[in-house]
C-alpha cells in the first residue's frame, strides 16, 4: 500500500509535467527553439545527476563523463537506426541499450582504475575520455553507420518534452531513493573517509564500482536522449570539454546536492542560449569566458555551491528526523 502511495506521489506530478510539456509542444504555444533547449536542459540534468552520484556523493573524481555520455548516444542511435524506424518501443529499448552500454564500459574501466586514489583516478578517466574521442572519430572504420569524424546522420527524432521530463523525473527519484538508503550512506561514507568506511565494514571497491556504474548509466541514458533530440551526432559533442561542462554544473550546484545540480543544469543551458540572444553576434563567443568567471566567483563567494546542504523537499530524506 505504502509503495502504491509512493508511486502515485512520485508519478502524479511527473505525469502532470509531461502532459503540460506535451500541450506546450503540440500547441506551439512556445517557440520550438526554446522547447528544444528545455529538452537539452533535461538531458544535461540527467547526465549531471550521474556525475554528482560519482563525484559528489561517492567522491570519485571523474574527468571522462562525456565519454560515457557518448557511448550511450552512439549505442542508442545505432540500435534505433538498425531496428527502429519510428517505433516508440524500439526507442525505449534503444535508450536502455545506451544505458546498459555505458554501464558495461564503466564496469570495464572501473576494474583497473577504481583502485586508484582520487587524483590518479582523475588522470585515468581523463585519458579514457581522450581515447574514446579518438575512437568516436575513427569508428566508421569498424561500424560505418556511426559516421566517425563526419558525424552520424539519419537518427530518428524521437525525444519529446514528455520523454525528457519523465526520464529526468525517474532519474531524480531513483537517485534520491538510493542516496537516502543504507547503500547511499555507504557511498557517502567513502567520500568522507575511506579508511574509516572500510573498518566499519563498507566494501570500498564494490561500493565505488556501484556508484561509478550507476552514474555512468545515467550518462548513457542522457546520451541516448540527446542522440534522438538533434538527430545528429558528432565526436566533438563528447570531447574533454563536455566532461568539464558537466563537472562545472555539479560544482556550481553544490557537490553532493541533487537540487543544486537540477537548478544549475537548467541555469547553465538557458544562460548559454539566453546570452546568444542578448549578446551582439561578434561577442557571442564571450559566453565561454563568462561561465568560468561565474564559476570562480561562486567558488569565492559560496564554495559549497548554490544550494549548499539544502535540498528541495521532495529530494530530502524524510527519515532523518
Amino acid at each position, binding site marked *: 500500500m505504502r509503495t502504491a502511495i509512493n508511486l502515485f506521489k512520485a508519478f502524479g506530478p511527473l505525469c502532470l509535467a509531461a502532459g503540460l510539456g506535451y500541450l506546450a509542444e503540440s500547441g506551439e504555444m512556445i517557440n520550438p527553439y526554446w522547447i528544444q533547449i528545455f529538452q537539452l536542459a533535461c538531458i544535461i540534468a540527467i547526465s549531471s545527476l550521474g556525475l554528482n552520484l560519482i563525484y559528489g556523493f561517492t567522491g570519485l573524481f571523474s574527468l571522462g563523463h562525456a565519454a560515457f555520455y557518448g557511448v550511450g548516444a552512439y549505442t542508442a542511435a545505432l540500435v534505433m537506426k538498425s531496428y527502429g524506424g519510428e517505433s516508440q518501443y524500439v526507442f525505449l529499448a534503444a535508450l536502455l541499450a545506451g544505458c546498459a552500454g555505458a554501464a558495461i564500459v564503466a564496469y570495464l574501466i572501473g576494474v583497473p582504475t577504481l583502485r586508484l586514489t582520487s587524483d590518479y583516478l582523475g588522470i585515468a578517466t581523463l585519458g579514457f575520455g581522450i581515447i574514446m574521442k579518438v575512437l568516436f572519430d575513427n569508428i566508421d572504420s569498424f561500424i560505418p553507420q556511426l559516421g566517425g569524424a563526419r558525424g552520424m546522420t539519419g537518427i530518428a527524432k524521437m525525444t519529446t518534452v514528455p520523454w525528457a521530463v519523465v526520464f529526468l523525473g525517474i532519474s531524480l527519484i531513483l537517485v534520491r531513493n538510493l542516496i537516502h*538508503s543504507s547503500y547511499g*550512506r555507504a557511498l557517502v561514507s567513502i567520500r568522507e573517509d575511506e579508511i574509516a568506511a*572500510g*573498518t*566499519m565494514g*563498507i566494501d570500498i571497491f564494490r561500493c565505488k564500482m556501484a556508484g561509478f556504474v550507476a552514474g555512468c548509466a545515467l550518462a548513457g541514458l542522457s546520451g541516448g536522449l540527446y542522440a534522438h533530440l538533434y538527430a545528429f551526432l558528432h565526436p566533438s559533442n563528447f570531447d574533454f570539454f563536455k566532461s568539464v561542462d558537466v563537472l562545472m554544473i555539479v560544482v556550481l550546484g553544490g557537490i553532493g546536492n541533487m537540487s543544486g545540480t537540477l537548478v544549475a543544469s537548467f541555469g547553465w543551458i538557458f544562460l548559454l542560449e539566453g546570452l546568444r540572444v542578448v549578446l551582439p553576434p561578434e561577442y557571442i563567443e564571450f559566453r565561454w569566458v563568462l561561465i568560468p568567471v561565474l564559476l570562480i566567483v561562486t567558488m569565492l563567494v559560496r564554495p559549497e555551491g548554490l544550494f549548499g546542504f539544502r535540498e528541495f523537499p521532495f529530494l530530502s530524506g524524510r527519515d532523518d528526523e
Partner: protein
Amino acid sequence: MILEVAGLSKNFGGIKALAGVDFHLDEGELIGMIGPNGSGKTTVFNVITGIYRPAGGSVTMDGTPLVGLSPHAINRLGIVRTFQNIRLFRNLSVMDNVRIACHSHVRYGPLSALCRSGGFYQAEGEIWEKAMHLLSIVSLQDRRKELAKNLPYGDQRKLEIARALATEPRILLLDEPAAGMNPFEVGRLMEFIREIRERFRLSILLIEHQMRLVMGICERIVVMDFGQVIARGAPEEIRNNPRVIEAYLGEGSGGEG
C-alpha cells in the same frame, strides 16, 4: 583465545616498525597496550584491521587467518576499532555516522531501496531504532542531527565508540580513548568501558598513555618498545618491571638507584 598475533613484523622503508610482536587476547578479556610514542602500538592496530599488510607473521581470529583480508572483511568477522586521531564522517550527522556502521547488517537489497518497498521502510526503521539505542548509551541521542565535526572533542570520541559498536563486534580495539580527557572524564570513561564490555560481551584491546586507566581496568598489560613486546603481565607485575621503567624513563635511570 579469540585473537592471536604471532611474529608480526612491518617495515616502513628502513625503519622496523614491528619486529616480531606476539600476544593474544582471550574471550571476554580486557588488555592494555602501553609503550612510548613510536613503539608500534598503532601499527599493530593497523595490521590487525587490515589497513597495513605485515611483512611477516600472522593474525588469527578463532583460527581464521586475517592477514591479506581487506578491512571490511575483517570488520565483518567481528573486529572493529576507533582511531587515535578520530576519524568520524565529519560532514555527516551524528545519526548517519552510526547508521553507516549498520550497513554491513542491512536487511534489504539495492532494488528494494530504489523502489522503496515495504521491506525498505521496515528495515530502515530497525536501523534507526538500533542507532538511537546506541546513541542513548553514549548520551548523544539529542544531538543526532548535528554534524559530527561540530561536536565537542569528548563527544566525538564517544560517537566513535557508538559507531564502532553498531558493526556488532566481538573484539573492540580502542586507540587512546582517553586522549585529551581530564581526570574526571577518565573516571567516567573507565566506567563506560566496563559497562559496554559487559553489555555487548566484548573482548577489548586498548592503547592508552593514561596509567590510571590502564592500571585501573586492564586485566593484563602488553608493553611495547621499538616494535617489540618487552613485557607482559598483570598490572602489578608491569608497574615494577625494570625493563618497563627503563623504556619509559630512559636508559640508565632504572639502574642508578
